[in-house]
């Protein structure tokens, strides 16, 4: 099969690009080595749409962050993704930080980003858990939170409905040029394409080198996090940052769309691009550093720790370029990558100067807009009477019904694993971390995908929670 455009990587960047380009009358393929969309960098991060006052002037990060952040409200409306402009508080707690604080204010002003400087007293009225040392706070009301993998998935679903193809479990092993573009050699055979868009995240340097480019290394930079349960949802209502330093944005308290709180991340350069392990040192560092901006941290409500990896590069700014004909390179898309994603897609579109016409009919809206949990009591009752499985609660912590789980398996780019279900509709995200619901989700997946229970994977191949059925309940 020959494609006009092949996008390598289905993270939030690849998916945003696919969404943007799917209006063109050409054939587009998205490949990803993972078994689900947005399964690596986009899956584990702070999930923030930064307002754009942080990146330095003259950088691509600064430009695309501001643009992207402004595109988000409409984008999320179109694709039916959650978007909450909770606002951010940058907390100054020592006099030495005054210069940095003032610089942030200046940049916000210059970039026309709404902001407000709050006194300690005003800020504490809104966030009682700010540390007693707080001197003043820079409030950024347009800073928002999203679910990055949802933003990716929902965009890619629209692209698929516009004709884009997606191959998962498809790892690009080498690339050779041919008379009219490139041949991708993958574990699923050869794929011919005219144009390549390299949005391979952590592996973007390796993909770039496959076509002979000399690029800098992607440096995996690990960030560890704690997740607090819903019991702690009132701990912070805004994203709370310390004043940024040369090392990064510091340790944050971030409310999530689903009313958890994230605490983290640290930033540690590591060797292994899959080194998502957490460490005693890292977690202890977060516990300690967090206290520079907040107090009364309800560590009792921690339900999970995790680590995500940022695809950083030594030169710091995003690299988005067309270094050779028909090849777009995206390198070093770390923070503010999420905030910039829609603007990056637009930028890539401009770089490409595609010769294809725009389709007469194409979708920009995602058709999967139904959210059972947002219905009223009466509406839920009526809906269950028509669709009884929506009354069967499978996950008690997050109150997810069988109907919602089945639906997310059968949608376009549906879930094929327990983690896939968890990403889409949340069973296992709560306090019991799947202790009660995982066996039930496993049964539903086996039934809906017509496979044996021991073939149901938690995530990638080899993560099946059960090995073999040894007898027992007949209907298991």
């Amino acid at each position, binding site marked *: 099969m020959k494609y006009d455009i092949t996008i390598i990587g289905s993270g939030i960047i690849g998916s945003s690009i696919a969404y943007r380009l799917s209006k063109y009358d050409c054939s587009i393929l998205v490949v990803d080595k993972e078994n689900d969309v947005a399964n690596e960098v986009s899956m584990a991060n702070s999930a923030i749409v930064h307002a754009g006052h942080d990146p330095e002037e003259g950088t691509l990060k600064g430009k695309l962050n501001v643009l992207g952040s402004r595109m988000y409200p409409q984008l999320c409306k179109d694709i039916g993704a959650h978007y909450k402009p909770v606002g951010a508080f940058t907390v100054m707690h020592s006099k030495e930080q005054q210069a940095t604080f003032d610089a942030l204010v200046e940049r916000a002003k210059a970039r026309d980003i709404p902001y407000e400087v709050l006194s300690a007293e005003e800020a504490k009225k809104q966030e009682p858990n700010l540390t007693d040392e707080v001197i003043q706070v820079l409030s950024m009301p347009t800073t928002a939170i999203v679910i990055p993998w949802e933003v990716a998935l929902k965009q890619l679903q629209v692209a698929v409905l516009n004709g884009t193809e997606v191959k998962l479990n498809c790892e690009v092993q080498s690339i050779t040029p041919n008379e009219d573009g490139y041949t991708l050699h993958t574990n699923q055979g050869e794929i011919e394409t005219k144009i390549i868009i390299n949005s391979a995240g952590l592996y973007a340097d390796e993909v770039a080198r496959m076509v002979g480019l000399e690029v800098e290394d992607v440096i995996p930079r690990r960030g560890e996090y704690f997740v607090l349960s819903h019991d702690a949802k009132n701990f912070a209502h805004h994203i709370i940052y310390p004043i940024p330093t040369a090392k990064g944005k510091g340790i944050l308290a971030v409310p999530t769309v689903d009313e958890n709180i994230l605490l983290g991340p640290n930033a540690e350069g590591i060797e292994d691009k899959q080194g998502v392990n957490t460490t005693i040192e890292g977690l202890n560092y977060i516990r300690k550093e967090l206290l520079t901006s907040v107090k009364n941290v309800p560590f009792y409500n921690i339900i999970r720790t995790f680590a995500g990896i940022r695809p950083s590069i030594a030169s710091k700014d995003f690299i988005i370029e067309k270094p050779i004909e028909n090849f777009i390179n995206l390198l070093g898309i770390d923070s503010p990558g999420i905030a910039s994603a829609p603007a990056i897609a637009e930028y890539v579109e401009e770089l490409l100067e595609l010769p294809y016409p725009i389709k007469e009919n194409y979708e920009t809206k995602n058709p999967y807009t139904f959210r059972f949990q947002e219905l009223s009591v009466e509406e839920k009752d009526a809906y269950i009477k028509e669709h009884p499985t929506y009354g069967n609660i499978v996950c008690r912590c997050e109150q997810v019904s069988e109907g919602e789980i089945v639906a997310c398996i059968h949608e376009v780019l549906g879930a094929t694993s327990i983690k896939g279900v968890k990403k889409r509709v949340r069973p296992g995200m709560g306090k019991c971390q799947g202790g009660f619901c995982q066996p039930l989700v496993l049964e539903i997946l086996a039934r809906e995908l017509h496979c044996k229970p021991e073939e149901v994977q938690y995530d990638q191949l080899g*993560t099946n929670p059960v090995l073999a059925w040894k007898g027992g309940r007949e209907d*298991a």
Partner: protein
Amino acid sequence: MRKVTCVIIGGGSAGLAAAIELKKNGIDDLLVLEKGPEVGGILNQCIHNGFGLHEFKEELSGPAYAERFALQAEELGIPIECNTTVTAFYPDKSIEVSNKNGYEVIQADAVVLAMGCQERTSGQIQIPGMRPQGVYTAGTAQRYVNIDGYQIGKRCFILGSGDIGLIMARRMTLEGAKVLGVAELMPYSNGLQRNIVQCLKDYDIPLYLSHTVTNIEGYPRLQKVTISEVDENRQPIKGSEKVFEVDTLLLSVGLVPDNTLTVEAGISLDARTRGIEVNEYCESIMPGVFAAGNVLHVHDLVDYVTAEGRKAGRGAVRYLKGELPERNGFVTKAGNGISYVLPQRVDYPSEDESVEFSFRVRSPYKNASIVVKNGNEEVKRIKKLALLPAEMEKVILPKEVLTTIHDELVIEVEEA
């Protein structure tokens, strides 16, 4: 909106006992709501024996113990709705309920909370390392093995010597897995003594006291677990590492009352029990809201859960019949060596002939005394050969003593 005199949330041992007590005392308009396909709760996956020594003076399996109460409830004609989840509970005692027939609001006059507990997970105890497949809480593993009939692993290590962990050490062995050991952070076990003997010693499974897991390796499946000895501050000691090549790690690191609904309703929890605060009728600060079983505090024996369920049922009966006088009592306090005392308040000191107090010690004691004080004045002393945190202790005080207490009742340990 459906109206029900008394709704019991949860059809496990606490909920069933409460329902039976209510029905026997003339409260007919009852409803037990159970999320699972049958009543009995977690007992249904506890296929080992050891249940019922206090209630029935015999040793039953978990399902057999549950069945006795299920049958009694059936004979009494108690309405039970299974496969039904309570999704919200409000301070006005209205509750939202979901099942395959629909979604409705039920208004109750009294509510008994009997939702049981949850296991602490690897995230809660923050084991560093990778997050591969093969790490399960012991209860989830128990369900996969005992209810669903799956094999989950072949070489197994267990962190935490809670009872479920000990029971699962034996269970995994009987299922053909090799259990390489059990590590316990504390210098003593958190399980019942009989489980240490019957589940570990009888199967030559080593118990590593003062040890914890300090690394998890392998991806996508677990390959290695590292344990380290810990010092008196429970910090790992460098150089004491032992590595076990296993594909399964079970966690038995504590249970936490499942008060998600309660917290959403705005009722605050006792910081030590993580359950609500109650009086001697298991009644919360909100009149007509009762709690019993593991949602109130984590028990060691199901027999005690049943007894507490009956107590809550009795309280609900008296509340509904308008028999309870004005609240006028005292609070209880966990003194030296005690982690918590239940009930947290006695509201009606002159109502009953006696009140039973449950508590746990913070650490093991030998030849110590339990001392009960009215403020600073000693009112009772009980000599104990041994006291263990894993075992719940009880003291019963008669009305004559209770009516003399006006400030606070303190229970403490005094070493010999």
